[in-house]
């Protein structure tokens, strides 16, 4: 029963990891921008939802505010930080440092506005129900998994069948060829940031209710996203989805075999294993130089 409980818990955690990581992977895969401030997008969305919720405006307005905040932040960051740096031949490292700095600024601004303490979104959906002897599952666990399935289904259809989806995939393959075909890479980048930022919203809202929020949690979110992106294969959305789920499951099921302090280390042990054995990740493409 403990194994089943940990499997369900792991799937819930994995779904949240996957939702966060796929947004980062999509942005990185399409634009080659190391968007470290993705964790800041998570924090902005979570705190906006929390603020609207505690102000009494309800769930729907909270979701709208969180989504709008995440998209606006992503687009502004792209337009006013990443594009100018890239225009001036900024290196990959410059973009990374700028993004890292923005993450710290957002953490401090959120701390100043909402306080630096711990807050949580109170909802009866976070309370577990005993389904059978020793098996407790909260409604939010099902909501996490359903959200992940719906979002990934829509994303998969979008990338496969829509014109913009094809353009996003083309941008990651060959930006010059995209220009030749008369498409605007900047507009496509903006679309990548929009979609990537939207994907983080459900994970941010659900985390606010299950584990609570503090302004400093963005770095942890980013570490998990990065690990899932590398394990899944850089640029592979499907690979990142599988990796996010696998990391969540591994972290939870590890409790069956190792002491609890090693569960987070399991995530990074898997990461190192992939870097050594299969550097291209689960579904990434190998390249020879």
């Amino acid at each position: 029963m403990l194994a089943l409980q940990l499997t369900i818990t792991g799937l819930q955690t994995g779904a949240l990891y996957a939702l966060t990581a796929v947004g980062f992977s999509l942005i990185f895969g399409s634009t080659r921008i190391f968007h470290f401030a993705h964790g800041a997008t998570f924090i902005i969305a979570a705190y906006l939802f929390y603020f609207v919720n505690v102000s009494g405006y309800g769930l729907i307005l909270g979701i709208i505010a969180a989504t709008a905040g995440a998209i606006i932040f992503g687009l502004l960051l792209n337009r006013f930080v990443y594009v100018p740096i890239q225009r001036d031949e900024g290196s990959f490292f410059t973009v990374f440092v700028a993004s890292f700095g923005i993450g710290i600024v957002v953490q401090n601004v959120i701390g100043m506005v909402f306080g630096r303490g711990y807050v949580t979104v109170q909802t009866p959906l976070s309370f577990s129900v005993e389904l059978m002897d020793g098996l407790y599952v909260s409604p939010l666990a099902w909501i996490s998994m359903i959200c992940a399935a719906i979002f990934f289904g829509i994303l998969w259809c979008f990338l496969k069948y829509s014109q913009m989806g094809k353009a996003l995939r083309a941008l990651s393959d060959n930006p010059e060829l995209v220009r030749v075909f008369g498409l605007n890479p900047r507009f496509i980048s903006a679309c990548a940031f929009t979609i990537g930022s939207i994907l983080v919203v459900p994970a941010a809202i659900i985390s606010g209710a299950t584990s609570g929020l503090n302004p400093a949690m963005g770095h942890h979110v980013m570490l998990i996203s990065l690990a899932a992106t590398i394990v899944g294969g850089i640029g592979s959305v499907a690979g990142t989805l599988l990796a996010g789920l696998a990391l969540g499951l591994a972290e939870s099921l590890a409790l069956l075999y190792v002491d609890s302090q090693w569960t987070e280390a399991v995530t990074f042990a898997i990461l190192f294993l992939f870097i050594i054995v299969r550097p291209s990740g689960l579904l990434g493409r190998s390249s020879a130089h």
Partner: protein
Amino acid sequence: MKKMKNLFAVFSVISCLGFLIPGSASAEDHTIGALFPLSGPNATYGDVFMSGSDLAVDHINADKMLSGPMSIAYEDSQGLPQPAVVGMTKLVNVTNVPYVLSAFTGVSKAISTLGTRNEVVAVNGGGVGPDLAALGEYFWNVIPLVNLEVRAVMPYLIKEKGIKRVVLIYIDDPFGNSILEELEATLKDSGGELVETMSVPTTAQQFSGIAAKVRAAKPDAVYIASYGAQQIQIVKQLRDNGVDQQLVTYSGYLVPDALALPETEGIITTGQGVNYKSDDPVTKRFVTDYKAKYDRDPTAYNVNYYNATLLYAILAQALEAEGKEVTGANLLAKRQEMGSFDLVGGTVSFQSNGTLLFPIQVKVVKNGKPEVIDTIDFGK
């Protein structure tokens, strides 16, 4: 023109020397340092600690206890040893303070050697690891350490609540490990049993799996030994994931963020006993002014940092009256000479290991407020 240039150069050199030579700033200004977590997951404590020390500074300056205005130079420790050492180095070598307020077990242990080496007094009012009693004569504690809290609560739970089987969830750092050792020893002596121990990394945020293991262990009570946001996350996630056994923790949990959480209801904690209704003028003034300034009741952390700051003023005042320089060495000698002090909570004196002894209260959280259910006085 050349004379003017030379005059300007001489003036610049004198100004620079004045800036560089330690202690050449106005001798009447009193600046002490503080290493508090002002960012990161433990930042919730920073505001709590500062509210106590800032109120003490207000009172000290209003009473003109010292020859000049007193201020506190705050450095952000993040509750972590490495940034704390950076902050302590700055306070010791650049700001040149003789006295530093410290918090957190890991932080306090990391900075204590710098304090001892440079003869700078470090005073802890927030960390409760038992090791803090053995960090040398320049390290003082104005808070009872957690070994006393464990020794107070466990016999009470076993005797009064019939609790025998305990699970411990503890943070994987010096503080968490010290609680593990203390709990093992205390339960053995009191007739209880530690049925499972689960350590968690300092960065962990997901505890639903831990909750499943706790349920499987079927304990009577769960002792939680972490701090900051993580400690509150553990309580919330245990309750949300079907752990309905008695939760027990230590004084570090009694912060406004934790008390505001509905899942906190019924949790048993320990903490130092402070009689806020005491008639002594120091306590009365502190309680009245704290409520007026912050619009909430004070907690033990506010008391501790108020006391730590006031203690500096008392010692420095005595040194100034004797015409002695306010240095770390002189502050230490004066504390040993004076013996007892009128602080919030009454007249107190330090033990030989530099730690103040307070009674320990066992409390239960009801309607978001801790209510005292037992008091154990280890000094008697």
